[in-house]
């Protein structure tokens, strides 16, 4: 564990009305690290990402990003600090062109040259987007939309990128291509927090893996040490034995 992680979530509780979705969640991501968050449906994975992005207000706990408490910030301020979320279901702006989508992604930045450079980088990462620059978002295929959603997020120049279910509804070939770019992104020093149903895929690129079960996060450790059985249990929501509780880990 690095001495001061880039993102440090501690004791996080989130409620939807009376329903508690997250229980004392502790997760951290170091600079340049790829962390996978696995778990079944409604385990709280997306809730955690949304809380970090400040779309949800936690009822207890702290979220610290590179020394700044995100507690009272609004989503746009979190983006400006360098945290970017690629939302589940892509949410490309259908009535905007590909180029405009990318420019919207850079909304928090003012320097025109830096924006232009980021756009070049995105186009290099996803050459298809350059070809389709002036096409409306809703005319893209699912895979292209996913590339656009990732590219759009990159435009804000994030130090931490969070991706929610990026392989959903995509063909295996496209998924493979998308994951290849993930590795490229992490090589540039951007930390990645990845939420996936496709466990094997996400674990294969991760430096570290957390499992979420019924609103609680458990650190499973490094992928190499994980057996197929561990992963299955994590996904189907069984109690995990031998894994360290994330609560005990830091106290």
């Amino acid at each position, binding site marked *: 564990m690095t001495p001061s992680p880039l993102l440090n979530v501690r004791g996080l509780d989130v409620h939807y009305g009376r329903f508690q979705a997250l229980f004392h969640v502790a997760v951290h991501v170091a600079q340049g690290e790829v962390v996978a968050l696995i778990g079944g449906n409604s385990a709280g994975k997306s809730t955690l990402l949304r809380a970090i992005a400040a*779309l949800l207000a936690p009822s207890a706990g702290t979220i610290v990003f590179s020394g700044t408490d995100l507690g009272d910030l609004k989503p*746009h301020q979190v983006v400006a600090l360098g945290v970017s979320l690629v*939302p589940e279901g892509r*949410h490309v702006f259908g*009535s905007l062109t590909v180029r405009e989508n990318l420019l*919207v992604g850079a*909304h*928090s930045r003012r320097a025109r040259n830096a924006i232009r450079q980021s756009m070049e980088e995105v186009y290099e990462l996803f050459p298809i987007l350059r070809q389709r620059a002036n096409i409306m978002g809703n005319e893209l295929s699912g895979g292209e939309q996913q590339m656009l959603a990732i590219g759009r997020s990159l435009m804000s120049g994030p130090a931490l990128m969070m991706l929610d279910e990026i392989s959903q509804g995509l063909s295996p070939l496209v998924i493979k291509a998308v994951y290849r770019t993930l590795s490229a992104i992490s090589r540039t020093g951007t930390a990645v927090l990845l939420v996936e149903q496709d466990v094997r895929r996400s674990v294969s690129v991760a430096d570290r893996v957390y499992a979420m079960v019924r609103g609680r996060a458990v650190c499973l450790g490094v992928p190499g040490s994980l057996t197929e059985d561990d992963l299955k249990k994590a996904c189907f929501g069984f109690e995990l034995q031998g894994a360290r509780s994330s609560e005990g880990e830091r106290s």
Partner: protein
Amino acid sequence: MTDLIQPIVNGILLGGLYAAVAIGLSLMFGIVRLINLAHGDLMITASYLSLVMVEQVGLSPLTAAVMVVPMLFPAGFGLQKYVLNRALRRGPEPPIIVALGISIVLQNVLLLIFSPDARSIPANVAVLAVPVTENLSLPVIYLMGFGVGCTAIAAVHVLVRRTRLGRAIRAASEDDETARLMGIDTEYVHCCAMGIAVTTAAVAGVLVGMTFTFYPHSGPQYLLIAFGVIVIGGVGSMTGALAGGIVLGLAQLVGAHVFGPGHQLLCGYLVLLAVLAVRPHGILGRANS
């Protein structure tokens, strides 16, 4: 038939002015799905402010317009920031009621200050006309209204299509949450959009004040016209606004010509009701809104 040409031409020209009345309302409805029921009253407030500038300060109508129009941007911005955004967070009904409340407050403030008498902004151009043929002449004030209306539409169009703020406005109107995830402060964007909307209303208000007489209670009448323009022309569509304005302008002036001047408003309303009955979300409107 030949005597119909004049009302038809006037109706088309009036349509440009009506489009200018409507674009701000259309812009806001496209973004927050809210018909700002105080739109007409904000417009009439601008008419009264210009009247004060002309009558009390002694400025020319044009100078008055240049003074008044920018004053209303912060008014719209603040209204959105401190009142409407708060109501919007509480669900779909509160903003309707709050906007109506603003309308009532504005009307009665104007009534207290200016009395219920009919007023108009004195302008020399109001009586000028360009003769074309012996049956047809173009009133200069209507030409101005049409020209300014088209200019305002073009300006808003460019702003929405070509600028960073416009991009943010479109993103926020399509998907508010994702826009926030992209680093857009959507509530701030709403405030800016409202500022722009009220600014366009002010432009329209100055023109209306020079073209017609107005009262403290004239606002709702123009709100209904603007609503009609949106319904006919489609939400958020700037060219649609011009088309809608022309349809309503024609309905009113041709109707007044055929049935008598008392029926001018009635004919416009009936056309609008017919459109609403057939296409409850407008002719060019999106069905899902």
